[in-house]
């Protein structure tokens, strides 16, 4: 029931935001904040049980909470939500970044704030649904539900080319989603022919035996949907546009949370349902991951636009996740998970910084910036911190993630891993370029005068004089410091977090291992001392 509440609270609060807007324009943001805080408290209530039961949870099974109600009996579809360690971490990330998004939008969104928070909360509710749904139909339902409010966030509150970006985002995700729907239905009917039981239940469908060829095609349907969302190299073109054009809060949610739904889907569905097909497909997927790492990094270096740069760096980091997910061993999975969390935090922070810069300077073009450290030293220091986090400085969360991914995938595919590791060299280049272009050099006050050509929303234009040179205020310091604390915590103490997801990851690994495949057998022969404490076979 807790899971239903988590979703329902956001849906109801979102509707309330919209309704109350006409009475009080200030109220929606407080309601959004309150709803997310309540959700966070509900989730936090789970943690004590988690810590005490962690040993027994490993033994008994991985699912902490389940909730099921019949929905469409005609097709054996039920409203089936469940929570394991993996989902729990993803939910925490979602709700935490939801709070960050509300905080970034606090002053930025002045046009129809009620409808904005409505869309924000509904997106988050959809994402929570994705992370907990264990009925394939329900999963798809949430997968699509989440799109519409996100589309509105980009299309209404976005920047210059918002319409183009929003439509591109929607079409990419929806069309790839249809491939997933097709694959889902095909899987369900295969299962129906084998067992005579028409069902969309994840656990039942795990029992399906697929012929290699059919399994490959069905797996591909899921793979396309998730890889578009992730995004990986050939399907990435929607991302720079969507991220760049979205308002700050939209970018935070997109980068921090929505991309992770793709990674989660790969782990839960592609690996979970089609272990064998996925292993055969692994070389291709890993190659795509490696190309994403290098391509994203090199494209990031070529950008003038801060948000576009961060967007391309996201593609690069997501490449590591693809690499890790298809490496089929414990370290790589832990690495992929840690990268998901770490990238969620750091990219959210970087987009918040880019939003803050745009709020002050009314441009995202780095060539028009310079010497900004003089006027905003605090923002500069925060930027430096997150750039270092993004480039993978040891001691911060991203390092743990990428290191574990490389360690794990080296065991299954050494050549590709060596090439991917080059991405670790490219990352400092673009990350430090950000610092250099924006904060070093001579200060130019010319920036503010260009604001008209960028055509920001009218309401913002009126506030130029006050904001141009102001450093971070209490609100900004507050959310940035929360992000910093968690990034450092994950960097120094990753074990506690990885422990939560361990049963779920082991489960996935076991399904993968139980299938006869030469790939896995080869991996498991090699012992690895350095991260043995993470492994709990």
């Amino acid at each position, binding site marked *: 029931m807790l899971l239903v509440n988590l979703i329902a609270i956001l849906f109801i609060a979102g509707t309330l935001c919209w309704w109350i807007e006409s009475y009080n324009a200030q109220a929606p943001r407080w309601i959004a904040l309150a709803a997310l805080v309540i959700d966070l408290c509900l989730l936090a209530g789970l943690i004590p049980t988690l810590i005490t039961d962690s040993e027994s949870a490993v033994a008994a099974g991985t699912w902490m909470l389940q909730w099921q109600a019949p929905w469409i009996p005609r097709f054996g579809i039920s409203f089936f939500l469940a929570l394991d360690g993996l989902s729990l971490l993803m939910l925490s990330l979602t709700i935490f970044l939801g709070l960050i998004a509300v905080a970034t939008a606090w002053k930025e969104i002045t046009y129809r704030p009620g409808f904005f928070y409505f869309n924000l909360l509904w997106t988050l509710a959809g994402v929570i649904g994705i992370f907990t749904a264990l009925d394939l*139909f329900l999963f798809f339902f949430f997968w*699509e539900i989440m799109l519409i409010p996100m589309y509105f966030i980009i299309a209404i509150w976005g920047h210059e080319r918002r319409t183009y970006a929003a439509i591109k985002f929607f*079409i990419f995700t929806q069309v790839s989603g249809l491939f997933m729907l097709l694959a889902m239905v095909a899987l369900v009917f295969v299962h129906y022919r084998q067992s005579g039981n028409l069902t969309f239940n994840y656990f039942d469908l795990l029992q399906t035996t697929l012929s290699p060829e059919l399994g490959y095609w069905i797996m591909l349907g899921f793979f396309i949907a998730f890889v578009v969302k992730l995004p990986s190299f050939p399907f990435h073109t929607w991302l720079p546009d969507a991220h760049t054009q979205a308002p700050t809060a939209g970018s935070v949610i997109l980068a921090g949370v929505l991309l992770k739904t793709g990674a989660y889907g790969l782990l839960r569905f592609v690996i979970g349902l089609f272990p064998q097909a996925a292993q055969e497909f692994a070389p291709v997927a890993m190659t795509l991951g490696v190309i994403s790492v290098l391509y994203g990094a090199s494209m990031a270096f070529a950008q003038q636009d801060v948000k576009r740069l961060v967007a391309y760096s996201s593609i690069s980091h997501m490449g590591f996740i693809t690499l890790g997910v298809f490496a089929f061993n414990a370290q790589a999975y832990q690495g992929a998970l840690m990268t998901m969390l770490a990238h969620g935090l750091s990219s959210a922070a970087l987009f918040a910084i880019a939003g803050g810069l745009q709020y002050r300077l009314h441009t995202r073009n780095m060539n028009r910036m310079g010497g900004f450290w003089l006027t905003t030293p605090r923002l500069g220091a925060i930027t430096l911190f997150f750039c270092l986090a993004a480039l993978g400085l040891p001691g911060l969360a991203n390092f743990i993630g990428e290191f574990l991914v490389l360690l794990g995938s080296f065991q299954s595919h050494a050549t590709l891993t060596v090439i991917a590791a080059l991405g670790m060299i490219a990352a400092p280049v673009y990350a430090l370029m950000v610092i250099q272009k924006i904060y070093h050099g001579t200060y130019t006050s010319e920036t503010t005068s260009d604001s008209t050509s960028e055509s920001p929303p009218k309401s913002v234009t009126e506030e130029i004089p006050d904001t141009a040179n102001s450093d971070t205020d209490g609100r900004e310091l507050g959310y940035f410091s929360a992000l910093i604390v968690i990034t450092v915590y994950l960097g120094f103490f990753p074990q506690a977090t990885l422990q939560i997801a361990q049963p779920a990851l082991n489960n996935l690994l076991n399904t993968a291992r139980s299938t006869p495949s030469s790939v896995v057998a080869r991996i498991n022969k090699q012992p690895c001392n350095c991260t043995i404490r993470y492994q709990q076979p």
Partner: protein
Amino acid sequence: MNPVPFISSTDLITLLPLISLATGTVVVMLIAAFARRHGTVAQFTGIVLIITLCSLAYAGKEIPRTVTPLLQIDALALFTIALLTLASLAITLIAYPYFQARTLHREEFYPLLLLALLGAAALASANHFAALLLGLETLGVALFCLASYNTRSQSAGAKSLEAGIKYLVLSGIASALLLFGMALIYAQCGQLAFDAITLPPAVSAPAVDIVLFYGGSALMLAGLCFKLSPVSAVIASLSKSAVFVVLLRYVIASDSLQSPQLFGLLVIIAGLSMLVGNWLALMQDNIKRLLAYSSIAHLGYLLVAFLALQGSLEHNSGLAVEACSIYLAAYVITTTGAFAIVSLQSSRSEQEVEHIRDYNGLFWRRPLTALAFTFMLLSLAGIPLTAGFIGKFYLFSAGTQAGLWSLLAILIAGSGIGLFYYLRLITALYKKVAPGSENLDADSGTTLSPAYIAVAVLALVLLLVGVYPQPLMEQAQRVAETLQIKGHMASK
């Protein structure tokens, strides 16, 4: 040939919907002739439609029943009649404020609407070529009049006449082809009743005859563009779905999808209509034209479920018939709703409000109307929470079961193109408007409440079916079961 028995009282009860529609048409026509008050005529039309709906409940107890060799009243017939009667009720509600805002002939619209519905109802229950032709021509005559309804108007008169003539010519050709096809089929098997027709095995010649039969029907199905909004809604929902149902019935009875040539031809038609319909809709700036072209695409989607019939019969499951019924229901509700909103906006003045730019920023002026329109468009695009998604889900299920992979791939491509123009419309609805210009369209003073009610109900039904589709699915299952038994018997 069975001897024709006299009609029993049970037969009359099953025929009640058709009888009430026929009587109602005459009554409304007489009222329109003598008491020329728009309100009265519209009210009586509403009453006739409600009586028809009630009579369906009585008829439902006696089904399935063959009433005279001509008509077969079964779950499919009643499902279709119910759907179309509800759509007509919505159209009546929308039409009243629309005509109230105009200085046209208003009253004649309603008897024509009822006549069209009668024709559609006859088509939906036709079990014989004679009934098919009667229904089709009744529908066709009414539609022709409706298409050229606006002839006296200063601004749109010429276009209206053009639309009428176009329709007349096309439907004439279609009827001729249809009759020719029937004659050929009769020459082949000497029967005119659907269930008596069987395809002679492995002969190439009769396939050509049936191609002709379908050629006629396909022409009837071809989407036509009309200028007058409520008429467009009638055309889009009534004629297409009625013709589709009769096709469905004929194909199940005669098992003619077994012919590979015919199957191939229909695959090509389905694929082309999905791609071409969507592609042409992409080019439109006029919402009514856009919706008309997109309805061609939807017909292509529907044909996917239709073609899945063959696979469905092999597995002895009614999934394809179910998919047809659900998709048809979703499509009728959605299209009627979308046209309802265009008429609602056009009812505010005598101007037709049908260009995309007229809808810029509608959400900020009239949030509820725009929201309802958004739901309709999302449903047309097949996004969850709406009936359209359930329909699309059924298409995928039926297509997968029948293994129509290439058609499903085209369906995905077509949906992708479709999304683009639906999203373009939605984007227009939510476009930011400069402050101050928020109250552009003032009310003309005519009462809009009937249209609002129709739009609200349609939007709610859309959402309800999208979120809790089980009741509709059960109805569709009943339709499938009765047809399946027949199909099974026919194959023996």
